């Protein structure tokens, strides 16, 4: 099997090795585990299901390890799943200054890819990793550290630039939120309180210390919020220099946030809603002429839509320009795209130009992010169509993607040099034999496993002998009969002779028994979609001369669209497995469970990502408090209660400023409840920033309101000051208690009474 995938397997096996560090045990041979299949094939149950629905299941034979390659390369979707499976991956030592910790193995490695200009695939847009790569490049990191597993020593590699960059952006969050709150509330104490919360939150500190995307993402999110708020304050002098500056800065930050992770979309939504509200206000202002309104509208379209889009596209342009060498991400993309990458077998390739009988080929589905036609030594489980060998679409290059083109009725060995070469022509009836298993591509009138309206496609027969259901008519799109079929350039369709259906890939992901590869079906609906079109990619025929081919270069727009389709597919593939404990969104605000960055055992140096519980619970209480205050203020205003000018100002801050922040929190938190993908604790941190700002604003307002009850203004000030001081001291003291979480603990676990952290394990679910 190709080296890239083997490395993936080894890397994943490495993770497992460390998850169960018991190589000493007799009977269990350590080294063989590395070569063996990581996460051995879970055989589907054949036991009768007791509930309704009858029996499903059945199991295929075990995958031979050398052919079983359902794992994408490191950094790919499944590698992240593995991370989910092993939990926060425990390293041997943990990120003592000189070791890689947790997700650094992904993002640090991707930084290296940029430095080495190797093409890779990731589910996130490229900006974050590009910046990491840039930071590494500038600080003299040469991109040679393999980032194989957490806990690896950095040795002589210069990693501090990358970590320093992330830490710097993480520290910038404090001034950003400080300025935002100051702008919204016009109150220095409120801004200070928020800043203190962020400075002393263990979670934010831990998350900023490593090579991760989160500090970069949060920096852009907060940057966008700050510039939006600043821009709102400039509303009284539209089209001034500062107005333009803040508005375009908002656009730049939006592009940045979107370019790091797709969750940047939430802040885009926040800014979008704010802008709509703004425009609505302007529209209601009758002193403003419609021409003026049009100018306002155009300015916003320019700064908040066109500018970010241009920047976002530019990011991808840089991404594809920098990464010009073949790497682990090739197979996710179309043949045309791959031919652009130096080192890819399609780059400046020379192959026999026309398809001939006896050729060995791979077929790539033309839908975006479609895979290669693939089969392996596994049967469809019982109850899912006929119990024959699976045929799937697989995104990685693999020996099991190889098929041999044969004549449908004769089985003469075409490799015999004495037989003259015969080309395949449009309209011919052919048989495709799977090279590894010598079975024929076959279809019949059984339901396909997922798309029930289509027919099942299997591999059938022994040593190339099957039946008439193995015959396919090959047709080239837009061609007349008798024409030859060109490798790579011809878009072909395979029509099943017996049933008249067309071979296609639905793009749906098969369950575990199908190794989470893509479904291949035979569709009886004769619609012209890329799903049912294929091209021949590899073509091996020793009897034909190789001819150099320049494949049609894809346009940049096509590449951009294609990479987004691939990313979306990668994201939807990140589904939690059965019986797996995953982090749930409702866990997050209550700080229910942290993430182990490294270290499990007592002797390890352990870092645990957990918010400072005092701060987080304060935030949680504040959200409730804020809702209470808002509702009572709004009702009081609606009932026409006369407020003093001070109280009016307070209510304005709570309703307008607090409202914006509350909306930000909701937008960054609620959508996670609807996501089907694997979630992690650190997804909450952008929402946590909003929550902290809300805490600052709310408590400041509340203290001012309560202090108002003391009559002389000096006493009132003292009360207010005392309250403020108490909050700050509480935050600092709690940081003193919990600081070891971020700066590392060595020694007994907290569940052990002798540990210095013993009294601090306030929830059973914390594992430090």
């Amino acid at each position, binding site marked *: 099997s190709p080296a890239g995938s083997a490395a993936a397997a080894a890397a994943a096996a490495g*993770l*497992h090795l460390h*998850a*169960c560090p*018991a190589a*000493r*045990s*007799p*009977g*269990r*041979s350590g080294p*063989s*585990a590395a*070569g*063996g*299949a*990581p*996460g*051995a094939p*879970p*055989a*589907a*149950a*054949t*036991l009768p*299901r*007791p*509930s*309704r*629905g009858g029996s*499903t299941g059945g*199991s295929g034979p*075990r995958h031979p*390890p050398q052919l079983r390659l359902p794992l994408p390369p490191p950094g790919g979707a499944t590698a992240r799943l593995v991370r989910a*499976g*092993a*939990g926060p991956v*425990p390293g041997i030592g943990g990120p003592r200054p000189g070791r890689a910790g947790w997700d650094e193995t992904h993002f640090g490695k991707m930084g290296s890819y940029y430095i080495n200009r190797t093409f890779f695939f990731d589910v996130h847009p490229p900006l974050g990793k590009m910046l990491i790569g840039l930071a590494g490049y500038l600080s003299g990191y040469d991109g040679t550290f393999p980032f194989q597993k957490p806990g690896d020593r950095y040795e002589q590699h210069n990693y501090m630039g990358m970590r320093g960059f992330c830490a710097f952006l993480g520290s910038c969050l404090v001034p950003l939120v400080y300025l935002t709150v100051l702008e919204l509330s016009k109150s220095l104490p409120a801004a200070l309180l928020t800043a203190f919360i962020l400075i002393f939150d263990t979670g934010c500190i831990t998350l900023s210390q490593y090579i991760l995307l989160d500090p970069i993402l949060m920096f852009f999110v907060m940057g966008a919020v700050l510039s939006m708020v600043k821009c709102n304050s400039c509303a009284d002098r539209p089209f001034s220099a500062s107005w333009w500056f803040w508005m375009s800065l908002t656009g730049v930050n939006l592009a940045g946030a979107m370019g790091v992770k797709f969750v940047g979309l939430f802040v885009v939504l926040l800014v979008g809603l704010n802008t709509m509200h703004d425009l*609505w206000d302007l*529209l*209601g202002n*009758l002193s403003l002429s419609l021409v003026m309104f049009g100018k306002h509208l155009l300015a916003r379209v320019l700064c908040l839509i066109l500018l970010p889009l241009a920047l976002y596209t530019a990011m991808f342009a840089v991404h594809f320009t920098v990464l010009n060498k073949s790497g682990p991400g090739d197979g996710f993309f179309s043949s045309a795209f791959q031919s652009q990458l130096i080192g890819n077998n399609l780059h400046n390739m020379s192959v026999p130009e026309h398809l001939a009988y006896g050729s060995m080929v791979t077929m790539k589905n033309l839908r975006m992010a479609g895979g290669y036609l693939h089969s392996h030594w596994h049967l469809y489980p019982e109850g899912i169509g006929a119990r024959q060998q699976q045929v799937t679409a697989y995104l990685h290059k693999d020996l099991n993607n190889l098929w041999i083109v044969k004549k449908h009725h004769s089985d003469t060995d075409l490799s015999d040099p004495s037989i003259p070469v015969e080309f395949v022509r449009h309209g011919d009836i052919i048989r495709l034999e799977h090279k590894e298993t010598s079975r024929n591509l076959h279809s019949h009138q059984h*339901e396909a496993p*997922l*798309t*029930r*309206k289509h027919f099942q496609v299997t591999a059938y027969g022994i040593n190339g002998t099957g039946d008439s259901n193995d015959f396919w008519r090959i047709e080239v799109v837009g061609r007349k009969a008798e024409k030859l079929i060109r490798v790579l350039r011809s878009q072909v369709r395979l029509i099943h002779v017996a049933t008249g259906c067309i071979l296609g890939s639905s793009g749906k992901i098969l369950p575990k028994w199908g190794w989470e590869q893509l479904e291949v079906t035979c569709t009886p609906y004769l619609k012209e979609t890329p799903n049912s079109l294929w091209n021949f990619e590899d073509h091996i025929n020793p009897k034909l001369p190789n001819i150099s081919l320049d494949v049609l270069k894809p346009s940049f727009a096509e590449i951009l669209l294609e990479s987004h389709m691939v990313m979306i597919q990668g994201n939807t593939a990140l589904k939690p497995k*059965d*019986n797996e*404990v995953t982090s749930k969104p409702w866990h997050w605000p209550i700080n229910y*469970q942290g993430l182990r960055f490294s270290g*499990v055992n007592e002797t390890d140096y352990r870092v645990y990502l957990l918010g400072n519980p005092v701060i987080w619970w304060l935030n949680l209480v504040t959200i409730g408090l804020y809702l209470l205050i808002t509702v009572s203020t709004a*009702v009081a205003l*609606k*009932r*026409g209660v006369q407020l003093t000018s001070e109280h009016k100002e307070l209510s304005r801050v709570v309703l307008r400023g607090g409202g914006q922040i509350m909306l930000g929190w909701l937008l960054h938190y609620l959508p996670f409840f*609807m996501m*089907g993908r694997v979630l992690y604790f650190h997804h909450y941190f952008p929402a946590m920033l909003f929550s902290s700002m809300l805490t600052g604003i709310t408590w400041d307002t509340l203290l001012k309101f309560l202090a108002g009850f003391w009559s002389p203004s000096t006493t009132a000030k003292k009360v207010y000051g005392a309250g403020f001081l108490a909050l700050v001291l509480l935050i600092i003291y709690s940081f003193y208690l919990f600081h070891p979480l971020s700066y590392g603990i060595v020694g007994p676990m907290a569940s052990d009474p002798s540990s210095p952290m013993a009294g601090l394990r306030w929830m*059973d*679910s914390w594992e430090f």
Partner: protein
Amino acid sequence: MLGFLKEPVILTVEINMNVMVLTLMGLISRLWRLSYPRAVVFDEVYYGQFVSLYMKRIFFVDDSGPPFGHMLLALGGYLGGFDGNFLWNRIGAEYSMNVPVWSLRLLPALAGALCVPLAYQILVELQFSHCAALGAALLILLENSLITQSRFMLLESILIFFILLAVLAYLKFYNLQKHSSFSGSWWFWLLLTGVACSCAVGVKYMGLFTYILLLTIAGLHFWHVIGDQNLSNVSLMCHFLARTLALIVIPVAMYVSFFYVHLTLLYRSGPHDQIMTSAFQASLEGGLARITQGQPLEVAYGSQITLRNVLGKPMQCWLHSHTNTYPIRYENGRGSSHQQQVTCYPFKDVNNWWIVKDPGMQQLVVSNPPRPVRHGHIVQLVHGITTRYLNTHDVAAPLSPHSQEVSCYIDYNISMPAQNLWRVEIVNRESDTDVWKTILSEVRFVHVNTSAVLKLSGASLPEWGYRQLEVVGEKLSKGYHQSMVWNVEEHRYGKSLEQKEREVELHSPTQMDISKNLSFMAKFTELQWKILTLKNEETEHKYSSSALDWITMDTNIAYWLHPTSSAQIHLLGNVVTWTSANVAALVYVCLSLWYLVRRRRKIYDIPEDAWQLWVSAGGICVGGWAVNYLPFFGMEKTLFLYHYLPALTFQILLIPIVLQHISDHLCRSVLLKSMFTALIVAWFSSVYFVYSTFSPVTYGEPSLSVTELKDLRWKDSWNILIRKQ
């Protein structure tokens, strides 16, 4: 007093003949030849089995929704004297004589028929003309898909009925609000809103969408009430409390009461028992209760027990061991300890018995008095038949290499000591000294040496493990997960000192007498939780569709086909109505945006009261359409065309609203108005024409010829069944 002696008693009855006639027409269209076809039609095969189970009082769990709808269907069966003896196994099967088809289908058909006058009333309450209201009712009447869906034992028509009833009741209440708050009829309609909402939610969870919509509208209206400065704070509070009571407290209480009736009716054990916990199963007559009756409650040292995994997924199973050992080397080359296999086995078996042993003592019998095991105690678990100890060690498990292997210890003398001490942790304990109880306690077993937790991994072993489920020691136990929790199901105090006697004892059934009853609330929460979390395999059905197909009706569902002729029934809507409804929604949205922007610039195109009507009618109809349709885009379950029907009903109500608005406000001249009226008449006759064209596949008769059927296939994506000659 005695006034009636002086004056004659005069009873004036006002009957709206419109409503009467509409009801009558609705009844005719829905009830006509209701028991034809006398065969199982589409999802009747699904709901029918629950009706049978109700008749036989057998417990079941249906994850598709709460039980109220099923109960209503069962009520029809009960009134018709159905005994429940029918095998619901395939669509198209002929009903036997004991099945009262007519009465089973009566309730859905009545609900469907009553939707017609309800539509009329809703438009009247929205203060549109009687002509528009009549139009809305007729459109509902002539909608083929609604007719098909109401004529069989299905839940959608009941759901739509309750949804419309809730909307009507709220509108009535709102219109009374202005002048007669807290009057008798005010209370009646307010309460009816809540009741209808809870009934809708009780039939299908989809009702929740309309319930939320009505709550939002009520909230907005109440916000205006708050702004009313003439109202004192006290009466404002009364208003608030009345609404909370009627719209939140009563619906919740009614919803719970549906489950109460459900659980009271179904007291016998049945096919879905295994999904529930042991405690729940023990509360059902027959089944587990027969076995567990009279078991000793407290687990003591020397107790013989079977341990069931609480998760119940992928199937229920019990901790098991047998004499076979783990293979020395697995297929992938990794090695094992070669000790005795420990698995989780989905069937009752003598090898599921374990004995709780005190590590400090040798005996395997219960002392007198029994010494109960408490939370935190350390025990050994001895496999009853092989007398080997449950053990785990630092060896990778066969299928989950990041977890520890669990085995029954065999001493091979290779310096690999037994590690067979387990700490009992009761998860649902009330205090730290709780006793381990049969069935009730959910227990985790924490390994003393490695602090691994005994867990069901969910994978099933290969041939050498007889495809039983893998059990592992999970080292990185992240919080609570049901796969790590076990409970004692069968239990008795061991008495036999010798192994031979013990084997005999293990083979004998447990029997004693006491019973454990769960409270209703405990049963309710468990059942509710199971309904919400139970996941069926998500597979595509031949007639399933995506939400996007519905709006243009690119799909249909074949409900039934006559076994010999080509008479058939399809869920297929009235194309003209569907298209007009889409157009109406589009026109409504565009016009509203236009008005809204113009009003913002202080240009008022229509009078203020007409604008208010326009907004409130849109809030109900467009809002109702949106909340009942858009959520399906985010759903991962298998979707069918009939899921769109509630949304469609709201959309249809919008057509006459938009038409009247156009004729009142946009047709300025008389000529234009009369032309518009003529257009409406023409359009309406086309609605009737389509209805009558498709009525053969709506009612399933008469049987059409092949060419006629081919002519009906107006869209290529429709699947009309044509027999091969």
